[in-house]
């Protein structure tokens, strides 16, 4: 009960932010009726999906301060569990998704244990390495379709398998995950683990002196992050209806996830959402408009890169860091 109350309790945010977030939620709920085109819808879905990924990454990467660059493997685990179970045994989404999350949790504990012996750059490179190893395994593993990937059978409109012919359903589906994610993160940041992680990030030695098992805390946060990402992965499977290791387990996906959260502002509730709200539309729209112009090839990415460099150099706490600096409080 207490946890639920905490999750819905946004009272430590300034009023203006609460109102802003309220308006934003209304906007999200009403979005399909605002007469947007379907590419807009598709971009919104990507935005919500990447916000979810970013929020997940934020537990270990933001609050825990561990530079984690291997989240794509969990996108893959979530997506593949749903896809393989549906293709092989016709198992509905609502059974395979929790199973996928469980597998992601189990796997994250398994590799988290050795992984968190490492610190700093060794850790960052190791997370990349584990993700690439898993991708290689999937590329060569015939049971899961190997490099060819898996196509999910089209089932028409069904809530059991979460397949729809209309994107509006998918939109509300991912919006539900997104809102659940926001509430969870709002609880998480105020939870014991949330505080302990931030202490570890500031000073691991000091954290240990306060009776915190730093490694175990990091593993737990890593597992939570992995579960989040696996949920997002399961959505990708039923949304795209085709997955292959290249598209769901790629290194660049891992980096994108971390990038959005960092750019928006790590270790803050709104950061990953802001990061995704800026980078996803920028990527999709710039890509879809400039991508077609031969003479401007590359310019879209240069703009994109310049923004990233600027933020990193002058506001290392991300875009939300600017706001936090002015209001003098972190949330």
């Amino acid at each position, binding site marked *: 009960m207490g946890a639920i109350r905490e999750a819905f309790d946004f009272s430590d945010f300034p009023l203006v932010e609460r109102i802003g977030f309220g308006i934003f939620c209304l906007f999200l709920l009403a979005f399909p009726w605002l007469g947007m085109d379907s590419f807009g819808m598709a971009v919104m879905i990507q935005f919500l999906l990447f916000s979810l990924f970013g929020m997940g990454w934020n537990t270990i990467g933001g609050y825990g301060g561990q530079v984690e660059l291997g989240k794509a493997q969990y996108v893959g685990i979530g997506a593949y569990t749903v896809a393989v179970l549906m293709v092989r045994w016709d198992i509905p989404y609502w059974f395979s998704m929790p199973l996928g999350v469980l597998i992601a949790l189990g796997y994250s504990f398994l590799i988290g244990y050795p992984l968190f012996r490492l610190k700093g750059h060794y850790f960052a490179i190791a997370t990349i390495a584990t993700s690439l190893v898993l991708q290689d395994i999937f590329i060569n593993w015939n049971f899961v379709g190997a490099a060819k990937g898996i196509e999910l059978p089209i089932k028409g409109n069904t809530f059991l398998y979460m397949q729809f012919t209309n994107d509006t359903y998918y939109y509300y589906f991912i919006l539900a995950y997104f809102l659940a994610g926001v509430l969870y993160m709002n609880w998480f940041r105020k939870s014991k683990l949330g505080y302990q992680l931030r202490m570890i990030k500031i000073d691991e030695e000091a954290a240990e002196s306060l009776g915190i098992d730093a490694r175990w805390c990091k593993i737990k946060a890593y597992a939570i992050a992995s579960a989040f990402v696996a949920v997002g992965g399961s959505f990708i499977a039923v949304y795209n209806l085709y997955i292959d290791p290249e598209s769901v387990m790629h290194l660049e996906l891992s980096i994108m996830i971390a*990038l959005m959260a960092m750019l928006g502002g790590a270790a803050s509730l709104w950061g990953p959402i802001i990061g995704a709200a800026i980078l996803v539309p920028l990527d999709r729209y710039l890509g879809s408009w400039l991508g077609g112009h031969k003479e401007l090839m*590359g310019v879209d990415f240069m703009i994109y890169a310049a923004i990233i460099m600027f933020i990193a150099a002058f506001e290392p706490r991300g875009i939300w860091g600017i706001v936090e600096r002015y209001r003098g409080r972190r949330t």
Partner: protein
Amino acid sequence: MVLADAFIQGILMGFLFALISLGLTIIFGVMDIVNFAHGEFLMLGMYTAYCLSISLGVDPLVTLPLCGAVGALLGLVSYYGLVRYLLRGPMVAQLLGTFGLMLFLRYLAVFLWGIDYRMIKKGLLVGKSLTIGPFHLDMTKVVCALLSLVAFTVVSWIIFKTRVGKALRATSINREAASYMGIKTERMNALAWAMGGITVGIAGGLLANFYYIYPMVGLLFVMIAFATVALGGFGSIKGAFFAGILIGILETVFPIIGHLLKTSIIGPHYKMTIVYLAYFLVVVFRPRGLFGWEQ
């Protein structure tokens, strides 16, 4: 026989990996920063060799010093224009920043040269191979290996035998203490970037002799360079050298073992897997890599 051949090819590749990783480890050693744009430096080194050898009509080997110069310039510009500011932030911001630099340089190349594949067609080394007994070795790779040895020797000499090197090492061990000793740490950082740029620029110039050139080429090598530097121990010159060779050997010998055992489970499709796995196993037991410093 096949194994011996694989071994030799692996060592040759290893020298190349080591050379590419050298700059990364120098920069890291001095200022604890991983340069994501390292692969893009390499790519620009390759383009330099390509453009110069085409426009001046000279042998691509002649352009090597210029490739090094371009690399150094690139290092300095990156340092003074960006990295200097990144140092104030946490590690996350540093990764973000150099990642931005990587994207920027890559697409700058796209903008300047387009996405075509280019290849140097004429040159002293291009397409030549060296036959020693039953082994056929790519001439460029042999030269590459030699230059790699030279580069490592020179860099080690600079770092361990000269005054500048002493200052560099002092900076890398303790920045504050070094600045009390009157060492201009800012300048040392810039020097590290310049040195890193030179080595990777030269590596790029050499690579251009047998590798195709296109804007995304950096990504292919940078992952290996990361694994090499991390395996050897961040900041360790010796580590980069041996880890590079180890990775080269692992990568070529491992699949051949599969071939000899007549099994398809072990094969080239897992050659990168084995490299990453090796890295993972090594650091789990030696969290600072093979030759990394204890803190």
